[in-house]
């Protein structure tokens, strides 16, 4: 039976570790789950301290049923990452209510480790790691505390566990590098809701301006060779075909045959490392010619769509061509879709559009005249435009005349459609910050952009960016430049020489490397690594061989480390002398029993060998004085050593 204080301490350790494991989840758990778990933790600790009775089985079953019902009510399911995590947290709370013996503690600690794993399913960035590592450590320390069977002295749990984790690190590294990965998955991808910022399959006026102030990285691109000029850095994202007069959306319902694409020009090869979007799209430069087919397929409107939402960092290689003729033939059905306008909405725009088209000689000329209108009339580029009425395009064109890319793209596309030209809005990112330290391009949410794509009889789908007509700096140098004019920021954030800017770039580079080397380490990189070890065409047997050798080396290192730690310490000089004295007596047949204290032994020597009594007593007393009263240290030691040297029975 444990003494109550120790029992409380164990409970406190376990509870603290569990709460730490729960912390990263508090961002996404329903508030009632977090509150309930924390309340149970607090109550259980109080109950332990005050000696309250723990609830009986009936109450616990009732609470378990209520918790499950609560999860179903607020998540509508009990599977999936969100509901699963909530259930895990609630199970831990329930277990805490009946935690008495070490086995219960162990269950809690195991749940804690599962919560850590779940935290990685949500995010794999360095911040999460910085949070989870101490938690794993704390959980292991709690296990050490619980697993102690003796009441006697023992090592400090946290420090000992730290030392053991350190020793485990080399083996873990070997396993990570060489453990065979599977292609694909055993079961489906994790699905969870998350509040991610970024582009979606919908765009209403004002949507993108929220993003424009957001410096979060959307993706990073490393070019294998030349970079396209800024004016061609259009990263195609969602293509929005349907318009209800206010909001553009992708429209899932229709399927069309894949149009032909003719590619030309010098291609650009690059690798994109995409941060989680929660969406089913990949971004690529227009027009993409090659991409990992297993990962995504190209839709009829030239988007790369994935099968599952991108919920973790994803890396892919792609090749894009600057010149293309896409969809030179337009089917009737598609033409119908791309001309669709909500009946009765934005009447003034439609009217204006028809008049302007009649005045223009061709579709292309008409498009130019609309761009000229944006440029020459009083239109302004701003990120804080006034709100728009239900007929958003009319309101924008004839009243407010202030807006950013989304407004211009929406208005332009509407005007094109009104004039009988197939057109659509394309969302994506435009531009990018060059990171000279890492040698890659950073696309931030602030680079989110929207433009138009119109179908012209001789060139197929053609990109027209109406924002470029109003604010050409936006295309060349980014949104800040468009807003504040070029000079203002020359030495500032966008300028590229300030200390802060440099630190930011270094930090971003660290994040990029983290993604490349840790988060994205996969089968291909594993094979590269094996090739570096001299395996020509590595298969799984080579992998197993390297894994075995690596583990062997790591284990040998560990064994050596432990042997060094456990090595017998050399006794101090006094003990060494006393032991020599014992050995000499042993040779004469006087053996000290293990349970005999030095003085008892001296008394026995006195009885057995009265002739040795005097030196034996002197040696024993000197030894004891050195042990327990080390004040006269050096002199006593010299004396002791001299006596033992002369002691030769």
């Amino acid at each position: 039976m444990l003494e109550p204080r120790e029992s409380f301490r164990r409970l406190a350790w376990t509870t603290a570790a569990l709460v730490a494991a729960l912390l990263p989840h508090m961002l996404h758990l329903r508030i009632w789950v977090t509150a309930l778990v924390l309340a149970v933790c607090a109550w259980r600790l109080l109950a332990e301290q005050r000696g309250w009775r723990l609830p009986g089985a009936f109450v616990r079953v009732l609470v378990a049923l209520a918790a499950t019902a609560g999860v179903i009510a607020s998540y509508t399911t009990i599977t999936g990452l969100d509901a699963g995590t909530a259930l895990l947290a609630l199970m831990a709370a329930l277990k805490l209510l009946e935690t008495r013996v070490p086995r219960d503690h162990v269950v809690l600690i195991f749940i804690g480790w599962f919560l850590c794993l779940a935290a990685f399913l949500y995010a794999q960035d360095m911040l999460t790691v910085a949070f989870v590592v101490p938690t794993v450590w704390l959980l292991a320390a709690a296990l050490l505390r619980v697993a102690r069977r003796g009441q006697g002295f023992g090592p400090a749990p946290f420090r000992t566990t730290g030392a053991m984790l350190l020793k485990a690190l080399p083996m873990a590294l070997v396993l990570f590098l060489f453990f065979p990965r599977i292609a694909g998955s055993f079961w489906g991808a994790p699905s969870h809701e998350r509040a991610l910022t970024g582009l979606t399959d919908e765009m209403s006026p004002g949507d993108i301006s929220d993003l424009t102030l957001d410096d979060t990285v959307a993706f990073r691109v490393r070019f294998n060779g030349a970079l396209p000029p800024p004016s061609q850095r259009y990263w195609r994202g969602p293509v929005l075909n349907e318009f209800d007069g206010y909001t553009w959306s992708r429209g899932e319902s229709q399927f069309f045959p894949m149009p032909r694409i003719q590619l030309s020009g010098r291609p650009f090869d690059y690798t994109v490392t995409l941060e989680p979007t929660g969406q089913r799209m990949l971004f690529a430069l227009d027009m993409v010619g090659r991409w990992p087919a297993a990962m995504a397929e190209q839709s009829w409107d030239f988007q790369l769509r994935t099968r599952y939402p991108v919920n973790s960092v994803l890396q892919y290689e792609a090749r894009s061509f600057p010149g293309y003729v896409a969809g030179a033939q337009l089917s009737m059905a598609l033409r119908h879709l791309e001309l669709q306008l909500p009946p009765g909405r934005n009447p003034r725009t439609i009217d204006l559009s028809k008049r302007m088209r009649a005045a223009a000689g061709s579709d292309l000329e008409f498009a130019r005249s609309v761009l000229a209108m944006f440029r020459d009339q009083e239109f302004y580029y701003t990120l804080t435009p006034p709100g728009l009425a239900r007929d958003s395009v009319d309101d924008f064109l004839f009243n407010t005349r202030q807006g950013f890319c989304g407004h211009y793209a929406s208005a332009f596309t509407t005007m094109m459609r009104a004039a009988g030209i197939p057109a659509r809005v394309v969302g994506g990112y435009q531009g990018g910050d060059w990171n000279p330290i890492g040698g890659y391009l950073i696309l931030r949410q602030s680079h989110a952009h929207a433009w138009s794509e119109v179908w012209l009889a001789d060139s197929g789908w053609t990109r027209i960016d109406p924002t470029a007509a109003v604010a050409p700096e936006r295309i060349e140098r980014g949104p800040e430049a468009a807003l504040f004019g070029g000079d203002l920021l020359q030495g500032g954030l966008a300028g590229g020489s300030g200390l802060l800017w440099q630190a930011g770039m270094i930090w971003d580079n660290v994040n990029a490397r983290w993604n490349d080397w840790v988060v994205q380490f996969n089968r291909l990189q594993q094979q590269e690594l094996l090739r570096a070890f001299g395996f020509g065409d590595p298969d799984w047997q080579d992998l197993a061989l390297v894994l075995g050798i690596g583990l062997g080396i790591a284990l040998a290192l560990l064994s050596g480390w432990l042997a060094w730690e456990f090595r017998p310490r050399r006794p101090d000089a006094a003990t060494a002398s006393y032991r020599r004295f014992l050995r000499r007596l042993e040779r004469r047949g006087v053996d000290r029993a293990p349970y005999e204290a030095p003085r008892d032994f001296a008394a026995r020597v006195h009885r057995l060998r009265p002739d040795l009594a005097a030196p034996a007593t002197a040696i024993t007393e000197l030894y004891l004085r050195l042990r327990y009263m080390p004040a006269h240290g050096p002199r006593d030691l010299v004396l002791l050593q001299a006596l033992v040297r002369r002691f030769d029975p």
Partner: protein
Amino acid sequence: MRLTRIPSRWVQSWIRRRQGPDRGSVTLRRGRIYILPTGLGCAFGVMLFGMLLGSLNYANNLGLILTFLLASLALVTMQACHRNLETLIASEAGTEPPFAGQDAVFQIALANPGGVARCDLEAATVAMSADPVSVAAGGEATVDLRVATQRRGWVTLDRVEITTRFPYGLFRAWAVLHPGRRCLVYPRPADSAPPPPPAPGSGGAGTTRRGDDDFAGLKDYHPGEPPRHIAWKAYAKGGELLVKEFSGAAEPVPVFDLDQAPGADLESRLSVMARWIVDAAGRGQAFGLRLPGLEIPPQPGMQQRRRCLAALAEYHAPVPVDA
């Protein structure tokens, strides 16, 4: 708690055959330390497997790192658990003969010559285990192994397991010792016994001029002499334990004879004898013992008590019992 998780007789006899008997002090070397995962260790393995499947399925590298780190931690604790026993020196310490019905205590000294403390070492016999002890680096600890006794005679400590689950309880390492140590169990003193028959006159086995009446002088204390005779004032002055001697009427010194002890059978007569001896020694009295074929001349003191009780215990002793 029952010690042997694999109580297979075969395994035990295999271990006994390969290790041979142990006498004196035994260093626990690699060859005689066995290790297996505990139930907790197996549960930990199942948890790791689940984490591995999940991480592989979602190609979650950080999850994999977590899984591998915990797996490596388990391997480290396996080594640490093994090392927690390795190079320990187990040696015989004292035994204290009990009366039948009490526990025989076998002491085992565990010395740690290494530079790291060894924690939570549990020594156990088949029947019972001692409280866990920890041994500091370079230190020593003594474990009391209690063996329940039912009757007089010899108890043998045949098989001892020294077990540890330190540090995390994921593994259990143990070493088996076959010390073959014996401990004598005295007959249980009868709860009530008639007073011993009076000594035959003054010409019996001898008398001493000692009694309780008149102070005669001081003499050195010997264990077993009644505390009320200790000269506490002299002790306070000189720090030496002295006993007051009294002279008085000559008291006949009894010699306890098995033939004169009442009782239905041998065991109950031995019990009565044990009672007489314990009482006489408690009073600080001198006494002798006579068994068929054995005569111990009268003497006072603890040594005499031990000698006489041992003689009783060994008299037609029952077959030794393995502990």
